[in-house]
């Protein structure tokens, strides 16, 4: 315990939440310059071009998918869900960090959230967009997706509310809406700043429209604070609810390996785990690219590392309990499934996920690792892969080895499975690039507030 405190103190010394020597003006200049004045770095163009190519790949594969049908994927009977659902869960998981950082850490008065919440939220939105694509595309008849919504249909029938998929529709769409509002409201004061600092007419007009007449009057600030706090309160339960509902997609089913009460908590933990991993994966290159080391300091990285370590341990516990319950239940199907995971045709995936999600992140116990951007970056990447594998093992292996041996089968992704997946990654990155180019990726006014607090004490 004691040395834990020493460590944190040490960390404080290593890195404050904002490097000294900054004035309100310098902060504003530095951040708004990225959008308004500074020339766009070459890396940006390169990155944007590459990720946009992937977007084109996505468009191509989606077109082909809609023309020919989901049969272009590797799915079959018994494994009727493949990449699509794996990716959906994966993206949704990633989409958790933003709101968590913004809302929960805000309510917890965590100062270090200030510099990362903005793009974490943006990332959340983009991840949820990518996630949202999959439930749509994986439908046999996507053009009837609206049948999942309650609307005045001429068929005189409504969606079937016992189905977790309907809950998904509501959970995800609510989550997206709230996260979007939260992000947007947070942006308003900065948009106003940009409006006022922009030179050319069009940017001023555009930012002005978005700023919705923000003048920074006391009353504006007052309302803003209330609204932001309310939204934070609203968003907090969603962080937990969304992935809980997503986990219901599996737990409601009686497929061995799905039908388990541990899923909700361990899905949420896993979501935050992968979410933070993704934040790190983005933050580390970004701060390098735009030289934001004094806003996104080692302190931030270290804290995120710690959150990852914590959630990672919860996830590990989840794996352990899965194994234990399947043995303890005495249910032959559950037992066989656990055996199939470890020894079956997909065993390499199972072991790989343990290495990526449990073994490697143990390095985070070491302070030097937690404070080394490179190490964190590598670990974050590992966790991203690991979490994807976890979903693959849950979805595919369980279906491949269910109740009747006669109907056991196997699944493997086709080129189109991979195309759609990488396509969404491209979409995600493209949106990220556009975001950092057009909007302040760090909340200007909150940084100034932070500076104020820092200089006060």
């Amino acid at each position, binding site marked *: 315990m004691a040395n834990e405190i020493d460590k944190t103190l040490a960390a404080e010394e290593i890195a404050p939440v904002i490097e000294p020597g900054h004035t309100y003006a310098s902060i504003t200049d530095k951040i708004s310059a990225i959008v308004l004045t500074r020339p766009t770095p070459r890396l940006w163009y390169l990155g944007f071009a590459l990720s946009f190519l992937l977007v084109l790949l996505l468009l191509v594969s989606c077109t082909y998918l809609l023309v020919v049908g989901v049969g272009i994927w590797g799915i079959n009977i018994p494994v009727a869900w493949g990449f699509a659902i794996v990716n959906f869960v994966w993206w949704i998981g990633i989409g958790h960090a933003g709101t968590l950082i913004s809302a929960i850490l805000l309510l917890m008065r965590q100062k270090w959230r200030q510099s990362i919440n903005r793009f974490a939220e943006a990332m959340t939105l983009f991840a949820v967009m990518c996630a949202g694509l999959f439930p749509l595309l994986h439908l046999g008849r996507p053009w009837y997706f609206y049948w999942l919504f309650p609307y005045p249909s*001429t068929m005189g029938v409504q969606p079937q509310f016992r189905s977790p998929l309907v809950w998904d529709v509501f959970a995800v769409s609510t989550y997206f809406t709230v996260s979007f509002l939260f992000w947007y409201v947070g942006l308003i004061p900065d948009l106003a700043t940009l409006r006022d600092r922009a030179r050319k007419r069009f940017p001023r007009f555009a930012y002005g429209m978005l700023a919705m007449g923000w003048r920074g009057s006391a009353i504006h600030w007052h309302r803003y604070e209330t609204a932001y706090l309310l939204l934070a309160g609203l968003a907090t339960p969603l962080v937990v609810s969304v992935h809980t509902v997503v986990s219901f997609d599996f737990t409601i089913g009686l497929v061995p390996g799905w039908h388990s009460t541990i899923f909700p908590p361990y899905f949420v933990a896993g979501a935050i785990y992968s979410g933070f991993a993704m934040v790190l994966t983005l933050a580390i290159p970004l701060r390098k690219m735009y030289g934001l080391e004094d806003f996104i300091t080692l302190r931030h990285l270290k804290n995120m590392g710690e959150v990852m370590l914590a959630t990672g341990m919860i996830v590990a516990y989840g794996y352990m309990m899965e194994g234990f319950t399947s043995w303890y239940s005495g249910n032959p199907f559950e037992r066989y499934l656990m055996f199939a995971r470890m020894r079956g045709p997909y065993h390499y995936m199972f072991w790989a996920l343990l290495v990526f999600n449990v073994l490697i992140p143990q390095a985070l116990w070491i302070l030097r690792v937690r404070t080394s951007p490179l190490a964190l970056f590598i670990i974050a990447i590992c966790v991203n892969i690991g979490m994807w594998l976890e979903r693959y093992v849950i979805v595919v292996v369980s279906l491949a080895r269910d109740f009747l041996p006669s109907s056991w089968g196997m699944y493997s992704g086709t080129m189109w499975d991979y195309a759609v997946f990488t396509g969404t990654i491209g979409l995600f990155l493209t949106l990220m690039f556009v975001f950092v180019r057009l909007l302040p990726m760090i909340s200007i006014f909150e940084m100034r507030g932070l500076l104020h607090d820092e200089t006060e004490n």
Partner: protein
Amino acid sequence: MAQIFHRSTNTLSRVSIFGGLGLVVALVAAAAAINRAPYLTDVRVARAQPVQFSHKHHVSDDGIDCRYCHTSVERSAFAGIPSTKICMNCHSQIWADSPMLEPIRESFRTGRSIEWTRVHNLPGFVYFDHSIHVNKGVGCATCHGRVDQMPLMSRENTLYMEWCLECHRAPERFVRPREEVFNMNWRAEDQLALGRKLVSAYKIQKLTSCSVCHH
């Protein structure tokens, strides 16, 4: 520096925010309405037919029973479209040389069928059986409307599933005594009371399981 937005834009922004929500609702409502409009459903839209056949004339003026032409309505899923022969049974005698009936005579001469334009049409995945409806006391007029008042045949109802369900969910609101099924201008004084009696009398059941109509 000068503001590029006039004060009024504040109001604009407020209006557009709340207006936006209203718009969504309005669109859904509009879509729902259009879906049920004759423009899409063809309700009361008369179709051009090779012969300007008037049900009104044949049913109310001549008093011909539905079953004279729609022969299989009590026995089969398909009510049956009269063969040219049935037309000629009368029209070889009356109006034997009316130019209006030339297509009929021509068909009978050459053996080429008359191509009527279909008025009531269900999608292929719906299995409707006339005979059981007729036997359970669903009147022709209940679905086809007052055919005896239609100079030109047109659809009386949308044939949408929600419309089918109106009756399948509450048959007592529509059923009538078997003997009144083909009676065009039958009215119940207290439909609900009678309906409930008939529903139990005719053992009307199995109405809202999907497989009753879809298989």
